[in-house]
């Protein structure tokens, strides 16, 4: 069951597009995540695919059949909601059987499917309970079982884990992914959590400002962000975005402080350079010129996150080894030691350079990140 989105659009009032020109191809058996900040239209897109919200423009194909105007029940899909949407007056078994009964499956098949689904999500001992007697995680499992029990091979999930506590969420992530693989489900998964998308998805669609920002594998998106939004949205701590200007023929000056060598000349203009905190190195005391002052220190156990200010006042985030000691107000000497992404002033990716301690090594080929 592959799904094809062809230039989908949604407007609630004429001319006011909440989603525009959304195109994507979702393979059968794929785990496809739609990520974006709240209000970016990701839930709207999911509901358009489900048929709960009419599509204003474009075409939707499910299994090579046009489904743009099909009623939800004929799209052969199931949906798991953020709030679970369980029927409070029905037991776990009846909740799971609800859709099958509505679709008039024969009784013995309903029984068999329901038992199998409840077993898969490990709820056997709770099958006669009402939702109010279950914990959040168990309720979420009931919602999953309801999707599994259906014969539909496409499952739409709308932030299914965001109501769970952090530990359970991490556990359910793995379980969900394993279930999806085991059953060969095609999953379209909406989330605002970039970590969830990175860890679970085969492909990620990043939505922002009513438009697709980038579609790619998690590695692609992390390593080759198409623009500053994607670059800063993925990865914790966030990527530093520093203003830059052309200083010499093959050199950029970042935030009036750091120098970055580039392998190809750039036209003189304003640029933004993205550097992940782990691509910045703090030089040992006494080497190099101090160029940043520590503002806050966060101990995470395995590492330390430092928020610092460059000499010209631009904030920058750094990671440091846990055994070192930093105090607010300390002056540090930092240097680029890793990948740097160069974006034009509109935030579109230009190319990437491998920075090595102040001097770019020209032999690294620039990677064009499809701008």
């Amino acid at each position: 069951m592959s799904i094809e989105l062809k230039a989908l659009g949604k407007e609630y009032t004429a001319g006011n597009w909440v989603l525009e020109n959304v195109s994507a191809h979702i393979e059968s058996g794929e785990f496809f995540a739609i990520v974006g900040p709240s209000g970016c239209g990701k839930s709207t897109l999911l509901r358009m695919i489900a048929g709960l919200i009419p599509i204003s423009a474009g075409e939707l194909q499910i299994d090579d059949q046009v489904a743009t105007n099909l009623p939800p029940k004929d799209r052969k899909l199931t949906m798991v909601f953020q709030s679970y949407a369980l029927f409070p007056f029905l037991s776990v078994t009846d909740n799971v059987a609800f859709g099958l009964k509505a679709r008039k499956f024969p009784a013995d098949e309903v029984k068999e499917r329901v038992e199998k689904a409840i077993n898969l999500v490990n709820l056997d001992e709770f099958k006669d309970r009402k939702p109010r007697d279950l914990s959040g995680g168990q309720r979420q499992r009931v919602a999953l079982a309801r999707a599994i029990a259906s014969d539909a091979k496409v499952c739409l999930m709308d932030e299914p884990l965001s109501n769970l506590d952090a530990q359970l969420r991490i556990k359910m992530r793995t379980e969900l992914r394993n279930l999806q693989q085991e059953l060969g489900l095609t999953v379209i998964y909406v989330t605002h959590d970039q970590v969830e998308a990175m860890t679970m998805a085969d492909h990620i669609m990043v939505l922002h400002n009513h438009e697709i920002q980038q579609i790619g594998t998690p590695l692609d998106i992390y390593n080759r962000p198409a623009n500053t939004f994607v670059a800063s949205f993925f990865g914790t701590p966030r990527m530093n975005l520093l203003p830059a200007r052309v200083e010499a023929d093959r050199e950029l000056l970042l935030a009036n402080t750091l120098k970055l060598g580039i392998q190809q000349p750039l036209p003189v203009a304003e640029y933004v350079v993205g550097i992940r905190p782990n691509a910045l190195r703090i030089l040992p005391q006494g080497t190099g010129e101090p160029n940043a002052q520590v503002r806050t220190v966060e101990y995470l156990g395995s590492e330390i996150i430092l928020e610092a200010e460059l000499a010209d006042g631009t904030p920058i985030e750094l990671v440091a080894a846990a055994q070192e000691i930093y105090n607010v107000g300390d002056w540090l000497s930092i240097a680029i030691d890793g990948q740097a992404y160069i974006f034009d002033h509109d935030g579109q990716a230009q190319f990437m350079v491998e920075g090595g301690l102040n001097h770019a090594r020209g032999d690294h080929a620039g990677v064009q990140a499809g701008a």
Partner: protein
Amino acid sequence: MIQTKTRKPLRYLVLILLAVIILGPFLLGFWTSLLPTADIAKGALWSTHISFANYAEAVKQTAILRYLLNSFVISTLTMAAQLLFCSLGAYAFVFLKFKGRDLLFYLILATMMLPFEAEVIPNFATVRKLNLLNNYAVMVIPFLTSAFGIFMLRQAFRQIPPELKEAADVEGLNHWQFYWRVTLPYARISLFTLAAYSFLESWNQYLWPMLTTFSDKFRPVQDGLRQLQSQETFNNWGMIQASAVIVVVPTLIVLFVGQHYFKNGLNEGATK
């Protein structure tokens, strides 16, 4: 600490006082229903001639059983009709989208502001034209639905999480199926409340049946009680009290049974 120590007994004192004020007349009525009329007339309330003779007499001499049957038929029909029509109306106001929906709803709400007494004369003219006087129909048909019931159920249906509707849509439930299989069970507490309310409302009707019924065959209890008093020049107070107690019993049953369902938290766990 001091505050809570003195406050608690004070609260109970107020509650006990209120309970005495409310229950007093009821207990007095019940007590007098056990006394012979002669004692009541003398004002000898502490009489020891207690018996159920008044009850036997009420059943034998008056049409009280017929009144009970009439009221039971009328109240049950009214209740069933209100549950059906109010829930259908409320469903439309919550789950169907049509032009002028809100305007229509406010119009219905506005009828709540009109006291029933103001509608009596036009309604009477209508039912007389329809030839419905002195019949069960005349006491049921004007009360088939109620603005209050629609309002109350609309509020209850609005509590249903939109995700439940979406989940039902994905499974392909049509409006009738969603109404029957999700909306009604979800709002069952409100439905029980409305059922109890409309039953009692109908049971306690006085003005309308007084105007529209002329024979014991269709007269409901409240008007029947009034009838007992005026039939004879000498009022058999013991018997009248006994009849009044008989009439109150179904009310108490409805409230007692109803209270069992008015528990909170039955809908927990649908979402979150």
